């Protein structure tokens, strides 16, 4: 079978065909041209069966949980908490933008969707507090692309699904790298705050106000605890935990906070169904495409070519990092992982790189690539949410990206950073 499908796919993708259709038309057209139309059945079969997976169901459940929390204003309690706790520190609201987006971003598996949702909440709040829209958008973009590294994470579920590694193990592997990036972003914000002499956002809140804010945001802060505790404590599988998180968020909004009216439910469920339907259909199409990659021998060719190029695993990891940063320019994190994971993962596993380690490197990379100038989907979304020009935003992003890329290098070359925690928890 020829490799025509691959070039057709690349052309259609660049020409603006929806990714999900380009993934199907590429192989479909090339098979038809080769007189192999009988194999269209296999494309259909992979499309259906690629979705027929219980672990994958965590994706719609996480998206639902995220939607419910936004709709019921649970997320806003976190902003309030940050204001009372560190609002009086220079750049306090910016620091809290980092913290809350890292805790709650990444539910959907789409860094683009997270940036727009968080941007809509934080950018106006920060502008109101006296920050430039440009800086607010840069902080939002830099921190929300990294949200999916700290669990819960939609793209990690996708990776675990395509590469058959443990979701819980991958979640555990993401914690330390995610914390490192959080610290790096904190440092950048603190440095900029001092250099630019940012105003303090508020007078120090009194302890009673802080206690109130903690009490109000406690239920939201409990969500990751329930999730990770449930998974790591052996009560539930990750998929079940995702369903429980969604139900918990619903109960919180409907019963405890009463901020979610029964009438809002239809809208919330519809939004979640649409978002997850779009991502999951893409999963199915990517599985079809992966079938073509494997049947045409492309996967083997790539593997052979990479192996022939050098034996130096570190050099290969460096090259793959650069490649993934480039990919992040045009593809969202979810599609990038679905399309490239099955090709790249096995190569590095065979070279002796731990599957969990490579998974973390890949997940960090494809998300950061989204915000890297000159172009990237998150960059564009952040620009449109803030009304800033892309070039200006890109310049503002540079110190953040430099910090993130430094962490990528650290995580790439020190496997213990990602592997220690899963080993301690018995997942690797």
């Amino acid at each position: 079978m020829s490799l025509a499908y691959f070039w057709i796919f690349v052309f259609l993708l660049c020409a603006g065909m929806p990714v999900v259709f380009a993934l199907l038309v590429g192989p479909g057209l090339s098979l038809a041209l080769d007189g192999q139309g009988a194999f269209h059945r296999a494309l259909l079969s992979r499309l259906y069966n690629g979705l027929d997976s219980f672990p994958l169901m965590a994706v719609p459940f996480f998206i639902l949980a995220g939607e419910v929390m936004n709709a019921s204003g649970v997320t806003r309690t976190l902003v309030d908490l940050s204001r009372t706790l560190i609002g009086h520190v220079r750049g306090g609201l910016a620091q809290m933008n980092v913290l809350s987006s890292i805790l709650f971003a990444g539910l959907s598996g789409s860094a683009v969707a997270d940036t727009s949702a968080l941007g809509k909440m934080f950018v106006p709040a920060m502008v109101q507090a006296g920050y430039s829209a440009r800086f607010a958008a840069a902080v939002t973009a830099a921190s929300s692309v990294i949200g999916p590294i700290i669990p819960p994470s939609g793209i990690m579920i996708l990776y675990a699904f395509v590469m058959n590694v443990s979701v819980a193990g991958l979640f555990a592997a993401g914690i330390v790298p995610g914390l490192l990036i959080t610290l790096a972003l904190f440092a950048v914000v603190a440095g900029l705050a001092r250099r630019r002499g940012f105003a303090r956002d508020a007078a120090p809140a009194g302890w009673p106000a802080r206690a109130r804010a903690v009490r109000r945001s406690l239920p939201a802060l409990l969500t990751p605890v329930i999730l990770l505790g449930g998974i790591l404590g052996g009560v539930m599988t990750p998929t079940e935990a995702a369903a429980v998180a969604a139900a918990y968020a619903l109960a919180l909004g409907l019963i405890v906070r009463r901020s979610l009216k029964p009438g809002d439910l239809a809208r919330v469920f519809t939004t979640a169904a649409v978002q997850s339907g779009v991502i999951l259909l893409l999963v199915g199409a990517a599985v079809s495409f992966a079938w073509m990659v494997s049947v045409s021998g492309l996967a083997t060719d790539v593997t052979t070519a990479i192996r022939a190029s050098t034996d130096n695993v570190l050099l290969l990891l460096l090259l793959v990092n650069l490649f993934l940063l480039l990919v992040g320019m045009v593809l969202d994190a979810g599609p990038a992982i679905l399309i490239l994971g099955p090709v790249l993962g096995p190569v590095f596993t065979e070279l002796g790189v731990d599957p969990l380690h490579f998974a973390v490197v890949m997940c960090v990379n494809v998300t950061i690539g989204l915000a890297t100038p000159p172009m990237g989907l998150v960059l564009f979304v952040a620009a449109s949410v803030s009304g800033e020009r892309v070039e200006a935003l890109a310049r503002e992003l540079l110190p953040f990206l430099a910090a993130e890329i430094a962490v990528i290098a650290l995580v790439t070359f020190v496997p213990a950073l990602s592997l220690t925690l899963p080993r301690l928890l018995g997942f690797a």
Partner: protein
Amino acid sequence: MTIAAVCRRLSGAIAAITRPLSVAGRNLAALLLAVMVGVVLAQVGWRYGFGQALAWSEELSRVLMIWAVFLVAPWAYRTGAHVSVTLFFDALPGAAAHTLRLVLTSLVVWVLWRLLVESLDLMADGRSLQTASLGLAMAPIYTILPASFALMALVGVERWLSQAAAALDALRRRPAAR
């Protein structure tokens, strides 16, 4: 009546079918998502509350998820919710953009048509197989596939017609402007 107007009229006629159907599909998918949450909660609840694992919950929720995905798909296509990379396309001059758009839509309709035909065959062949725990026949489960592909293909035709109308309009405007 101009050709562009005919295209537009036809597109509108098709929209009268695709709009309500795709909205209904999307709404049904939202309902199925709610049922999925319930089924998986029941799975956890039964295991811990009653010490009995449900044998059917996983399979049922998987079927529901697949149905939900294919129910949403026509609406997502119709409203342009599918992700695409438009960087390069936006840089194209008008005429090239119109032509390219028509070619792309034709290809999408073609692939949806092929998937429709294949899924009808799959249903015919799938009769001998059963699901693992509920023992359900596969054919009724597969019905969502041709239904979804047919509606998506129809949406594609609708879009093609309105894109053709826009292209014809642009063609007519240009010489006049000169």
